[in-house]
């Protein structure tokens, strides 16, 4: 239990900081402020970060490459295309419907990426993330073109640059679904670990490979959609948190999934707190902060690890 002490203490400190930080100061209505704004904002950052980190590790196991994450598979860009279509064609659709369409499009986007990835030689671990970047870039460009033509650029901007300043009670509760999905992933943690051994080995162990992979990717799509619709997209969280945990504790997801979720949540909350501090009382989007920090960690990973070779 001792090794949990430091991460948990750091997380508690971050939460306390996040709760006490803001343009409004605590007065008579401190409790109201906490309930309506500060707690929701803190919970949203933790849930979104945990979800993105878990989605990241699932994608990494599926493609057997540590340098890939959902935002390098076209999933968020595809989901944005779906949301643009909804905004144009059925602007009155309920949030649940938007989520469903965004998740479906994210899944289709990832399926396209996996079809591309299956044709790539696996010797060079850098190829998968680079192809993912190009693929996501193409989908993103289509989105920009569509949004520009339809005069929806402000929507696209909000999705592409995730931040938490708009989070209030009643406007983030969908993110709690991530907690349920995290529970589901914990139940199938062994199966997800076995996916990472590669298809032949996984099937030889009696795993229903196609079914497990499909289930994992559906969970990733739903998480992507939940986060995107509620608070916008964040790069690198799905890359950084799983990689740091793997370096520290290894690849056994039964033991490490809670830590990966915790790490992702702490990372995004830290990014949000830093974004609130830098130009206090103004704010910098958490996505911007995480992009700067995450890019640094990504470069370090590239330098330090050849990624994961494929069998």
């Amino acid at each position, binding site marked *: 239990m001792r090794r949990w002490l430091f991460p948990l203490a750091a997380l508690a400190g971050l939460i306390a900081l996040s709760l006490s930080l803001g343009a409004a100061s605590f007065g008579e209505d401190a409790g109201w402020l906490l309930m309506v704004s500060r707690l929701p904002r803190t919970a949203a950052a933790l849930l979104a970060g945990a979800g993105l980190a878990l989605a990241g590790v699932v994608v990494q196991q599926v493609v057997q490459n540590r340098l890939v994450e959902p935002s390098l598979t076209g999933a968020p860009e595809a989901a944005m295309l779906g949301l643009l279509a909804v905004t144009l064609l059925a602007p009155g659709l309920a949030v649940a419907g938007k989520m469903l369409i965004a998740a479906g499009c994210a899944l289709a986007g990832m399926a396209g990426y996996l079809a591309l990835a299956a044709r790539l030689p696996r010797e060079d671990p850098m190829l998968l993330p680079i192809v993912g970047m190009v693929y996501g870039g193409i989908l993103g460009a289509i989105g920009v073109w569509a949004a520009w033509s339809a005069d929806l650029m402000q929507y696209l901007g909000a999705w592409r640059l995730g931040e938490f300043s708009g989070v209030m009670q009643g406007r983030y509760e969908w993110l709690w679904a991530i907690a349920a999905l995290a529970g589901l992933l914990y139940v199938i943690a062994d199966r997800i670990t076995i996916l990472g051994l590669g298809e*032949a080995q996984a099937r030889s162990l*009696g795993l229903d490979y196609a079914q497990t992979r499909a289930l994992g990717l559906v969970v990733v799509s739903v998480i992507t959609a939940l986060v995107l619709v509620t608070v916008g997209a964040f790069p690198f969280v799905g890359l950084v948190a799983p990689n740091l945990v793997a370096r520290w504790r290894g690849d056994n997801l039964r033991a490490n999934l809670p830590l990966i979720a915790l790490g992702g949540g702490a990372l995004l909350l830290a990014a949000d707190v830093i974004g609130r501090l830098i130009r206090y009382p103004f704010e910098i989007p958490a996505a911007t902060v995480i992009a700067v920090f995450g890019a640094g960690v990504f470069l370090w990973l590239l330098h330090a690890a050849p990624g994961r070779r494929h069998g």
Partner: protein
Amino acid sequence: MIEIADLHYSAGHTPILHGITTTLERGGITALIGPNGAGKSTLLHCISGLEKPSSGSVRIDGIDPFTVPHRQRARTVALLQQSPALVSRLKVRELVGFGRWPHHQGRPGPEDAAQIDRALTAFALDDLAGRSIDTLSGGQRQRAFIAMTYAQDTPWMLLDEPLNALDPRHARDLMARLHALSRDDKRSIVIVLHDINAAAGWADHIVAMKDGRILAQDSSAALLTPEVLREVFDTPFDLLHHKGRPVVVAR
């Protein structure tokens, strides 16, 4: 017993196996030899139910690996694929433990722990049990993966070129271990080998393949003749004897 009847397999439009019909008896080590591209790995994948043949049938101890539930298949036959070069950060004990997955499906019991211990000991991995796979040498890593296949506790173990990337000492040790398992543990081992002398020294039976067909199949002593080897590999061989064991040398 493995019974294969008129097995054809194509990868896309490229035919790989052309009508394989054979029977592999239980017990001992059966080596698959043949030149590159003969279809040895493909045959192993078809037997283990991982690649669906375009026609023909496979039965392992009477079961059809393509129709039985995955879990039952995984308790009958275990495949170790060629060079699992995957740089995993699983610990050795965790990796070997996944060999028990078809038995416990996520809830390991004392029997599973005992089997893992046995597998670690059988492959001399006790001292490495807590090490991460990515910190091991190639030979140690190979042993860890074979120990996982062994822990799966199936009557049939299929190993695809497990001697790849092993130096002579580790290759010899591994063959000796497998030989002992086939005797003491009554495992039936089917193994793809590129080193004909490893087959000559350790295998009980040899299946020689070429161009997606079986050219010859017999006990090691009977099969290893210069004539057969020449036909299989398109190159002349001499057969010598050293300390009672056959040794073949490409001329």
